[in-house]
């Protein structure tokens, strides 16, 4: 039975999340990305909102950790079940889910990663300088470069388009890692069309010199004739030409030969006609007069596409598109802020690079152009979003939070005296802890929030130091002029161009703005079965939503693979070399015998090291049997000699000093397979980079340094206990508590992947909040969706539903929970105890009650829920209403409950539109503080205004007041703009009181989960593990996790499902090599280690009076070992004996 395999296109943050989820479950994953490093946007961000901290590495697997890399993800990622292809593009997809044929196109990597030691000689020699996209073009880099500064493999990469093939690097590379494939540029035929002879001839000259075959034509007509008799690959055409102009020629040429690449040449004035031409298929445009380098590099770019003919075809079961989104480029279109023209105007991403340690400022905040220190910074919100002028009728929902974070970071990193100002229309802090973050920014960091939209920017001519002048009007209507050193444009999001093209080619539906459309009530299923949208591809999401969608997409893929009958690896076959239990147990009783091997890597080590004295000193350590010098371990013969040496002297430990590629974990695992020496007993040292870093230090000093490093490794090797942890029995049944839409979806998702689920609901009907809702704001029928899901649930053989049932956890021990289920209305029923491996808390939440002191007999003041139910039960007839007032943030987003419940603004717009549709001349007023119609819901905000709804903004300090007046409600508020009091007599006042979670603390405590300050479920990491709790077997979704719409609840449920399945898919879980253990004999049960463990991996077994550890939950941080005075809590692999001896060696 074949093992399931999924292709994840896009290795950004979401791609990595989907890939890891599937790989941990046991499926094979092919992870591709068009850029030269993984991590996408995340590599350029040092910190993320809403904590302005970094949590990237918390995405790594928790159990079975040795299968994957155990270091900062910015250094790169490897996992046994994931194959990563960089600089690779997905060209096309055919076939059905379970049998998809995908064609990929990969840039041939001219540098062999297994040979490149990262010495950097080629970079020093390379003559070509190019704008570095990693620093958003603020710095330069060579054509051969390190993809991302921290990348572990630090294999150099050649920028295929920028490289001019001068061959210098090929000559200088010490390990011969660089080989150029020969090029035949004559095959590439170019047609140049321009009515001016001088332009034609000079271009012909330049291109001929580069080796291309060039033909010239003086008019459009002639060009078409030439195209008839022989094919061309590329055409460069002027626009302003007598007879047939360039645009017309473009259309005709495209008819003749569709994949002809056309580049328009235009005078400066006619730029927009060139942009117009691009819309009809032109690849790019050049503005005359242009210099040859621009022409050459653009031609090379086109030639590069032509050159890579062969593509790679793969057979996969499911495809996850995780291409993410691109940021809006402010210089397209009207560019009112002079981006690219005025010196101090930068985008959000450029600012992130400016403040980063690896950025242009090298850790100091300096002006990108003038280099002077920056003191006054402004952030302009809604650049390229909520702005019809740039074709964006939507809100990108993340830029507000990004700007707040950047402002806080700037102040914290470069001094609180920095002046930071945010200009915004609505500050959309829509996440759970986002509003707190904004308050912290305003109160603690004194960041100025100004509600105004800056229309344009120009240089402050009075001060010629390049500072920028901004004019804006404040709420009271007077005009201000402020100048700033730096202006950061909070650019909105645009669909990833490559992904949209792919979607169009595969006739997938995309929404009016080019984002991929997902099916109703789902954020991951696209209109094409088998292709799933992961991460922010299908719309504008922040990190935690993208990660949730990525996990949900992984769930979708897992369901497809399960239905196609594909198996996971764990069930398939246990990988013998890793867990050869008895072999290692014998080894444990042997005295350590260490072999130390150094690779001279082509050079003669005796020049740089006093090898004799090194051998002498190391052999004085009894456990170290011999020191050998070998050569070229990277080659096969080299490896052969090493394997023979091991088999001959048969040591049980190895200390290997070699170059970086030779000491990768995978290479050591291969060596382990061949030589029989277990990979966990090999200690490695990158001696080549140490030798390279200090070339001029004399022999004795360098010998002493290398000797000391080797001694530390020898002491680690000799005290290492080889016995691996035994594999932990893990229960493969799931318990879902709560029968709302989140619980239903989680249960169904797990059951669809073949695992049994117990669904517990305390009422007697399944459906939770969806029972009283009828339509969503997009007009989708909720009741139909709910009925379909409930039917699916009731007939599913893997789901057991327990209605009117309470749960009571009766203990958790490693690998398993036990829970007592008791019927609600039968007190004497003893209840049924079930055992389960994972718990999903989906107890949901509800509308907060209305705290209005005025007596209100006729129920004229209602919450949104009461109003909607009133309408459904015909108690309220919209036709007879004259005036309705809706008050947002009523009793919420203040000191008592300071979080935005995210959905009330959308719900208010839905009700307003519903009322207007039912009774057009009804007067509807919405009183709001910040209109949180984020993402694509912005269009409903516009529709509401169009249908005549009047919006009043109110200040949180001066809340609207309501009082009864006969049968009407008098609402008193103030119109901030007209600066005059407003009184409205309304038939009904609808209060948006926000959402309260319904997750009792007792229930959470029973399962080792905890609640956050707002009494929602506390996530392990709000961004990178959004549905997990610190206890790795407990998850949550739906309203009990965070306020969310129905789609978002469904997607968190699917994410929780895959996070559970990755545990359920293993009968036995294995922990990492470095894991905690207890020496019960010396333990005095003070439980200090139990309290300090952040993962709740330690339990007190009071019967046997010992501390029990769940090895799969333990992450090997060693905090317990440090807090235990008697050394009874031990970190296997890095225990105290080993550390003390290493210190001895280090100080000697």
């Amino acid at each position: 039975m074949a093992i399931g395999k999924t292709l994840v296109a896009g290795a950004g943050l979401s791609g990595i999340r989907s890939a890891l989820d599937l790989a941990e479950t046991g499926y094979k994953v092919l992870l591709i990305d068009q850029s030269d490093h993984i991590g996408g946007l995340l590599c350029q961000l040092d910190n993320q909102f809403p904590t302005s901290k970094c949590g990237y590495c918390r995405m790594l697997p928790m159990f079975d950790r040795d299968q994957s890399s155990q270091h900062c993800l910015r250094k790169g990622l490897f996992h046994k079940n994931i194959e990563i292809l960089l600089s690779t593009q997905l060209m096309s997809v055919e076939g059905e889910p379970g049998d998809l044929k995908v064609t990929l196109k990969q840039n041939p990597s001219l540098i062999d990663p297994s040979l490149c030691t990262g010495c950097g000689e080629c970079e020093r020699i390379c003559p070509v300088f190019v704008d570095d996209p990693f620093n958003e073009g603020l710095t330069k880099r060579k054509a051969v470069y390190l993809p991302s500064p921290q990348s572990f493999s630090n294999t150099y990469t050649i920028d295929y388009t920028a490289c001019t093939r001068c061959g210098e690097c090929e000559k200088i590379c010490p390990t011969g890692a660089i080989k150029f494939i020969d090029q035949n540029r004559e095959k590439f035929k170019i047609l140049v069309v321009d009515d001016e002879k001088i332009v034609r001839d000079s271009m012909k000259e330049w291109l001929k010199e580069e080796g291309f075959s060039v033909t010239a034509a003086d008019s459009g007509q002639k060009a078409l004739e030439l195209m008839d008799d022989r094919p061309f690959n590329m055409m460069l055409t002027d626009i302003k030409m007598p007879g047939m102009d360039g645009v017309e020629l473009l259309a005709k040429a495209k008819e003749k030969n569709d994949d002809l690449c056309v580049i328009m040449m235009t005078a400066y004035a006619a730029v927009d006609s060139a942009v117009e031409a691009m819309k009809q298929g032109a690849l790019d445009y050049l503005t005359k007069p242009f210099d040859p380098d621009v022409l050459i590099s653009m031609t090379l770019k086109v030639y590069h596409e032509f050159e890579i003919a062969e593509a790679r075809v793969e057979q996969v079961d499911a495809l996850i598109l995780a291409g993410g989104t691109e940021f809006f480029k402010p210089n397209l279109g009207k560019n009112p802020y002079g981006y690219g023209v005025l010196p101090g105007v930068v985008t959000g991403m450029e600012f992130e690079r400016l403040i980063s340690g690896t950025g242009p400022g090298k850790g100091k905040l300096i002006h990108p152009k003038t280099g002077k220190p920056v003191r006054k910074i402004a952030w302009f919100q809604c650049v390229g979003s909520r702005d019809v002028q740039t074709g964006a009728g939507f809100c990108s929902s993340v830029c507000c939070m990004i700007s707040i974070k950047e402002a806080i970071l700037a102040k914290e990193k470069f001094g609180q005296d920095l002046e930071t100002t945010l200009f915004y229309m609505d500050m959309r802090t829509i996440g759970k802890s986002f509003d707190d973050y904004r308050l912290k920014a305003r109160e603690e960091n004194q960041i100025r929030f100004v509600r105004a939209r800056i229309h344009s920017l120009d240089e402050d001519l009075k001060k010629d130091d390049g500072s920028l002048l901004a004019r804006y009007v404040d709420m009271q209507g007077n005009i201000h002029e402020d100048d700033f050193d730096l202006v950061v444009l909070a650019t909105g999001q645009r669909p990833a161009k490559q992904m949209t093209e792919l979607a169009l080619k595969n006739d997938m539906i995309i929404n009016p703005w080019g984002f991929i459309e997902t099916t109703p009530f789902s954020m991951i299923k696209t209109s094409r079965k088998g292709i799933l949208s992961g991460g922010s591809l299908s719309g504008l999401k922040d990190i935690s939503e993208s990660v949730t969608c990525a996990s949900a997409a992984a769930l979708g893929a897992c369901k497809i693979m399960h239905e196609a009958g594909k198996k996971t690896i764990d069930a398939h076959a246990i990988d013998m070399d890793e867990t050869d239990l008895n072999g290692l147990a014998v080894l444990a009783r042997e005295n350590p015998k260490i072999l130390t091997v150094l690779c001279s890597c082509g050079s003669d080590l005796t020049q740089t090291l006093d090898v004799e004295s090194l051998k002498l000193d190391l052999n004085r350590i009894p456990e170290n049997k011999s020191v050998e010098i070998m050569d070229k371990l990277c080659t096969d013969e080299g490896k052969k000699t090493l394997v023979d040496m091991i088999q001959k002297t048969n040591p049980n430990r190895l200390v290997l000093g070699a170059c970086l590629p030779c000491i990768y974990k995978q290479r050591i695992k291969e060596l382990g397979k061949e030589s029989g020496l277990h990979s966990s007993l090999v200690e490695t040292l990158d001696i080549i980079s140490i030798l390279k870093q200090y070339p001029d230090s004399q022999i004795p000093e360098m010998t002493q340094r290398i000797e000391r490093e080797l001694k530390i490794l020898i002491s680690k090797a000799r005290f290492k206990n080889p016995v691996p942890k035994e594999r932990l029995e893990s229960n493969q049944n799931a318990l879902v508590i709560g029968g709302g839409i989140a619980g239903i979806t989680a249960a169904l998702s797990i059951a669809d992947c073949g695992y049994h689920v117990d669904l517990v609901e305390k009422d007697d009907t399944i459906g939770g909040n969806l029972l009283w809702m009828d339509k969503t704001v997009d007009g989708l029928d909720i009741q139909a969706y709910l009925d379909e899901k409930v039917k699916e649930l009731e007939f599913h053989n893997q789901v057991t539903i327990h209605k009117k049932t309470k749960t009571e956890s009766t203990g958790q021990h490693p690998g398993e929970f036990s829970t007592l289920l008791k019927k609600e209305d039968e007190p004497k029923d003893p209840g049924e105890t079930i055992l389960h491996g994972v718990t999903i808390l989906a107890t949901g939440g509800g509308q907060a009650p209305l705290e209005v002191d005025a007596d209100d007999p006729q129920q004229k003041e209602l919450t949104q829920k009461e109003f909607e139910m009133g309408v459904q039960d015909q108690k309220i007839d919209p036709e007879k209403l004259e005036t309705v007032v809706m008050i947002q943030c009523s009793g919420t987003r203040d000191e008592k409950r300071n979080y935005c419940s995210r959905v009330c603004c959308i719900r208010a717009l839905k009700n307003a539109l519903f009322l207007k549709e039912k009774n057009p001349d009804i007067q509807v007023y919405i009183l709001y503080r910040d209109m949180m119609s984020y993402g694509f819901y912005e269009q409903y905000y516009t529709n509401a205004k169009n249908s005549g709804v009047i919006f009043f903004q109110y200040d949180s300090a001066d809340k609207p007041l309501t009082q009864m007046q006969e049968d009407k409600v008098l609402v008193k508020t103030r119109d901030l703009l007209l600066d005059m009091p407003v009184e409205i007599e309304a038939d009904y006042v609808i209060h948006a009181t926000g959402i309260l979670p319904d997750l009792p603390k007792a229930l959470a405590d029973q399962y080792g989960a905890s609640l956050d300050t707002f009494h929602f479920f506390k996530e392990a990491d709000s961004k990178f593990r959004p549905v997990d709790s610190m206890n790795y077997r407990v998850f949550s979704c739906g309203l009990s996790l965070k306020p969310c719409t129905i789609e978002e609840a469904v997607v968190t449920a699917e994410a929780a499902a895959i996070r559970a399945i990755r545990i359920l898919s293993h009968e036995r879980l294995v922990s990492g090599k470095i894991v905690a253990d207890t020496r019960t004999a010396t333990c005095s049960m003070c439980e200090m280690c139990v309290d300090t463990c952040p993962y709740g991996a330690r339990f007190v077994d009071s019967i046997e009076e010992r501390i029990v550890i769940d090895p799969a939950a333990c992450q090997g941080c060693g905090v317990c070992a440090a807090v235990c005075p008697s050394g009874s809590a031990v970190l296997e692999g890095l225990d105290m004996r080993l550390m003390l001896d290493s210190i001895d060696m280090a100080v000697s």
Partner: protein
Amino acid sequence: MMIKIEQEDNSLTKGLHQFFKRLLEMQEIDALFLPVRLKDSSSIMPSLVTDPAQIENAVPLSPAFPLNSGRMVSRLSYKESGRKTAVLLRSCEIRAFIELIKLKQGSRQELILIGIDCPKALTLSDYTAYMEKDPLEDDAYIQKVFSEKNETLNGFNFSSACNTCENPFPVNTDMNILLHGVDLSNGMMVESGSEAGQKILESLNMQQTSMPEKREEVVTQIKEVNSKANEAMIEDITEKTDSISKLNAFFDRCINCYNCRNMCPVCYCKECVFNTDVFYHQPVQYHQWAEKNGLVKLPTDTVFYHLTRLAHISHACVGCGQCSNACPSDINVFEVFKSVAQTTQVAFEYSPGIDENDPPPLSVFNEREFEDIVGIK
């Protein structure tokens, strides 16, 4: 609530015996834990008494302080015994026991904590010598310690731990027996410290009384004298051990017998890390250390052991002096530990043994604290 213990045929000790008998006969209390003079010798050891008749041999107030019985009480209470015990402890023993409760080595459920004004104590060696040369009668000793000048006892100095003890008055107990600042001629006072204590005292229905005014003034006066002595001691020991070579000299006679750890009430580990394989070094390691400096004293890790013990328990040290008592080489370990304990407890604003819910400093943390020690300017 405050009751009076009369003298029993004008002897305070007998008055106390009477009080303890009444306690033992109560229904709720099954056993009594207090110092008792052993039948066939003159030494006084803490004992668990269930037969009221045995109370006669009890010597609640004496200069004998063979060990800090805080550790013994933790043995009586780290698991349920089904028995209710009243324990009579000095202030440093109570504080040591409260520290052990925080480390789950004992609990107060089945205990009644009876504190008593500290009768000061002689060091172990001085006590044996004092017992041979006509020691005072029990009552005479009480009169001497609690009323007149009590610097020396028959020429022996009291242990430096007691002279420098800054809170010899028990707090956070169920009841306290007060002697300082009380006119002993007409008996002692017992003050209740908790409802449990109050309930017991009420059921005894003995004569009620009120706090003597002199008490306040005597207490502050004793504390002043002791803290002045404490400062002097700390200044002296700091000067004597302010460098590793001076520390070497100070611990030169230390033979790593680890007695000071065994007798320390707050050193609660069942088995100390210095007895585990971590410090059971390989032969080649000794040679490596010798080769490094030409010589290595054996047993090694002496200063390492003392510094480690300081790191482990300096925050919990209650200054009972038993470490010096236990040292076979007569090294004054107590002074080093008390001086370091002073600095760490002040740094973490932590006073050991006062309140069970105040967690030990290294078991908790806050997000923003001690930011001054981070970074290299």
